[in-house]
């Protein structure tokens, strides 16, 4: 007993205390060090925090390098999966495309109608100058939210032009130099944009909050706080600088009740701007003269044509659906008929066999009856040279009632 306890202690001591060859620390020492590391880390001991930061930096960078091959394998695997799913994806896309084509036509109709009515109320703006520019400097200062573009008066940039990223408004030009220009972002405190809030079509002035978003000012006494859905903020077109309907941002209804100022979450992240569009808008000045009337007529014709096309597509889709259903029904009917034919053929064969059997039996009975009556006239005996019983000649003779 004493011996085995000694062995246990020696083994433990050897495992935990003894330093191996090329080992600088004993296992127990490192275990204690880990525990101390854990405890000091938990109580936010400063030197440990610095070590933690350093280890994290090294670990993140090393992981980025080490995980390179794994990423390549992952990309390869995704590519293979994409190839395997290609056909089903293609089928889904085809269905979606059918639907989208119909939707696109609806969209075209609505756009044309919109243009038509805007022209009627003389509120149709067209882009008369569109310049693409690169953002040179976007360093934010605490006092000014602006970016500098690489295009200036040399490229027809003018003060007050709207600046868009994609279809989203991001600001307006406030300073024009020969080669460069400065854009005041809509998130700047000094930016005041007339906006329209959907779905209630409330008019307001939007001002930047000096950071990433904006707040609404002067909502004309309308109380938006009772609203319980998200609202979309677009330019109202008041003042004639911007056309109406350019997307800006949205107001989350969850934030409406919690804050006093109505916060607009701008769609675009200003720190990610690279290329922008500088645009100016002019009103299409046309009275309702003969030319514009003709134009309206052409537009009506276009709307009609688009409606017809939409209807045709709808009909075609319906027809396709019906044809598909008919095909399925025919297939089902076909298989049912095949099954019926097979059953009938089986029955017919059985009936024919039964008839044949009956016929044979009848013939046998007839032969036996005649055999009783006329058998002696055909049977071979020692006194005559007639037929042997069982031969076809004998049977023929019996059936002919002994007349040969």
């Amino acid at each position, binding site marked *: 007993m004493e011996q085995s306890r000694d062995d246990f202690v020696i083994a433990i001591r050897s*495992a935990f205390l003894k330093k191996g060859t090329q080992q600088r620390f004993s296992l127990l020492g490192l275990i204690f060090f880990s525990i101390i590391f*854990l405890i000091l880390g938990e109580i936010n001991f400063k030197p440990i925090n610095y070590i933690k930061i350093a280890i994290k930096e090294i670990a993140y960078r090393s992981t980025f390098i080490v995980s390179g091959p794994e990423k390549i394998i992952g990309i390869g695997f995704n590519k293979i999966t994409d190839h395997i799913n290609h056909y089903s994806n293609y089928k889904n896309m085809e269905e979606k495309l059918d639907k989208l084509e119909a939707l696109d036509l609806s969209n075209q109709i609505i756009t044309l109608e919109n243009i038509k009515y805007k022209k009627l109320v003389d509120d149709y703006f067209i882009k008369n100058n569109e310049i693409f520019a690169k953002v040179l400097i976007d360093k934010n200062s605490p006092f000014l939210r602006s970016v500098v573009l690489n295009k200036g008066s040399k490229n027809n940039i003018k003060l007050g032009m709207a600046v868009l990223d994609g279809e989203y408004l991001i600001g307006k030009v406030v300073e024009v130099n020969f080669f460069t220009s400065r854009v005041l972002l809509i998130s700047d405190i000094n930016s005041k944009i007339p906006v329209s809030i959907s779905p209630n079509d409330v008019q307001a002035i939007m001002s930047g909050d000096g950071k990433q978003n904006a707040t609404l000012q002067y909502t004309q006494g309308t109380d938006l706080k009772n609203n319980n859905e998200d609202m979309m903020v677009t330019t109202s077109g008041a003042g004639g600088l911007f056309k109406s309907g350019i997307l800006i941002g949205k107001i989350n209804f969850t934030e409406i009740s919690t804050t006093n100022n109505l916060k607009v979450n701008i769609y675009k992240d200003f720190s990610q701007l690279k290329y922008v569009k500088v645009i100016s808008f002019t009103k299409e000045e046309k009275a309702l003269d003969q030319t514009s009337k003709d134009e309206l007529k052409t537009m009506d014709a276009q709307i009609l044509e688009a409606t017809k096309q939409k209807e045709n597509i709808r009909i075609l889709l319906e027809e396709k659906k019906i044809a598909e259903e008919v095909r399925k029904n025919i297939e089902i009917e076909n298989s049912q008929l095949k099954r019926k034919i097979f059953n009938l053929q089986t029955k017919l064969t059985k009936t024919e066999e039964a008839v044949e059997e009956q016929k044979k039996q009848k013939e046998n009975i007839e032969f036996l009856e005649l055999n009783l009556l006329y058998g002696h006239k055909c049977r071979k005996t020692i006194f005559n040279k007639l037929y042997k019983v069982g031969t076809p000649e004998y049977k023929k003779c019996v059936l002919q009632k002994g007349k040969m």
Partner: protein
Amino acid sequence: MGNLRNNNIIRIFFEYFPMILLFVSVMNDLDFNDVGIKYFSFNFSYILIFYYTLKRKEALGYVSLFIAGLFNDVIVGLPMGISSLLFLLLCGFASYLRNITLRPNLVKDWLFFLFTLLIINSFSYIFLVFIFEYDIDHTNSIINTLFTFTFYIFFTYIFHFIENFFVGYRNAE
């Protein structure tokens, strides 16, 4: 001459192979702790450490285990030092088994590995839940332990094969 140099590189690679594998596994998803399959995960690092401490103790240094543990904690997001502690404890248990074993037996090693896993996971549970107030899914923890235990045999054969493959270079040393 070139052949000699090549042999030398392979010999060095063989020497540090378990350590390289350990660091790669803790820095990648290769530790199989979260393979994205429901009810399937295992801890490759535990198998690697246990096997090599048992079979070739000099392959994994204590300090490298400690550092690998720190890296694991940073990547997984555990309190720093906990994986080091668990790796070193695992190493300690394996060393103890090595010291008391006269005739190595795979089944005995395997069962001792289960015992070690249970102790280590209990330590991990106590530290994480009672001290650092982490939430641990018991089902996943048990599944992880069971699969780690099960796969020990499988990886033992693989490591054994690799060791035999490199044995020529080892003898050349």
